[in-house]
C-alpha cells in the first residue's frame, strides 16, 4: 500500500511539493510512513515480551577443574588455572576457596498488551505471566594446612535458571500429589 502511495506520479512531486497544494500525495505518504514508524516504535518500546539474563562471573564446569588431583594439586595451581577465588574461609581441617557464579534468567509476557489500544486511560489492562530463576552455583575447594587440595565440590542449582513463562507448575508439589495418589491407592 505504501509503495503505490509513495510512487511519484507527477514531475512536480520530485521537489516534495505540488504546485497547487501545500500537502501533496507524496507528503501525505511520507507523513503516513512517519506515523506508521512512530506507532511501531512506540509499540516496541513497551513491548509485551521480555527475555532477560544476568550472569555473575563465568560458569565453572567440572571439566574446568578436572586437573585437580586431591593430595597433589596446590592452591597456586588452582589459582593459576581457575583464577582467584571470590572468598576464602577457614575450616577445622584447613582453608576453603569459594568460587561463586550465578545465572539468572527471566521471561515475561503480557497478554493484555493489545487491550491498551482499546481501554480508556486508568483502566488496568495487564495480563502478565512472568517467571524468573537464579541458578546460583558455587565451587568449593578444600585445602589441608599445607594448601594442598583435599576435595572439590560443586553446588548445583543450574536447573533453577531457565526461560519459562508458566509460573504455576511446581515439580515438588506435583511429585507430592503423585505420592499422595500412591498412598491413597493402598
Amino acid at each position: 500500500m505504501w509503495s503505490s502511495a509513495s510512487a511519484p506520479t507527477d514531475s512536480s512531486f520530485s521537489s516534495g511539493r505540488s504546485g497547487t497544494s501545500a500537502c501533496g500525495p507524496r507528503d501525505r505518504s511520507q507523513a503516513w510512513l512517519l506515523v506508521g514508524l512512530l506507532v511501531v516504535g512506540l509499540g516496541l518500546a513497551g513491548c509485551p515480551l521480555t527475555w532477560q539474563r544476568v550472569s555473575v562471573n563465568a560458569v565453572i564446569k567440572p571439566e574446568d577443574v578436572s586437573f585437580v588431583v586431591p593430595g597433589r594439586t596446590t592452591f597456586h595451581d588452582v589459582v593459576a588455572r581457575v583464577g582467584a577465588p571470590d572468598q576464602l574461609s577457614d575450616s577445622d581441617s584447613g582453608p576453603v576457596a569459594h568460587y561463586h557464579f550465578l545465572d539468572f534468567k527471566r521471561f515475561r509476557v503480557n497478554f493484555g498488551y493489545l487491550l491498551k489500544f482499546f481501554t480508556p486511560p486508568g483502566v488496568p489492562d495487564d495480563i502478565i505471566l512472568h517467571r524468573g530463576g537464579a541458578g546460583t552455583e558455587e565451587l568449593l575447594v578444600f585445602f589441608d594446612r599445607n594448601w594442598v587440595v583435599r576435595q572439590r565440590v560443586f553446588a548445583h542449582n543450574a536447573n533453577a535458571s531457565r526461560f519459562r513463562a508458566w509460573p504455576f507448575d511446581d515439580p515438588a508439589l506435583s511429585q507430592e500429589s503423585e505420592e499422595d495418589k500412591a498412598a491413597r491407592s493402598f
Partner: protein
Amino acid sequence: MRGLLKLATVMSLVLLSGCAFVRANLGDELNPEAVEAIQRGVSTRADVTNRLGAPDRIVQVNDHEIYQYYRYDLKSGTILFFSRTNIKSDDLYIVFNSRGIVDDVVFGQRTNRLKFQFWPFGD
C-alpha cells in the same frame, strides 16, 4: 532528500527507543602496578595499606591474616525485548605471616574479559 533525512531520523529514533546500555561498578579499579609493587617477604601491612588503602575484608585463614580487596564491574545491554547483564569481579588477596610481612599475593582479574551483550541465549 529532506524526506529521506526525516525517514532516516525517525528510523534511528525508533530503533534506539528500545535500546539501553548500562555500566556500573563497585569499588575502584585495582591498579596492577600497585599490586606488583608489593613484595613477598619484604612488604608490611603498612606498605600494603599505603599503596592500596584499607582492605574490603580481613579474614583469618590457616593461621594467616589475609587482606581481601575486590571490585565489581557491570555491563548491560538491552535491545527491544532482549536484555543481558554481565557482572565480573577482580579479587586481590594478600597473605601475611605472623610477623605482619607479606607471605603471598594472589590477584585474579576477570573484569578485563567483561563484554557488552544483549542476546540472552546461549553461553
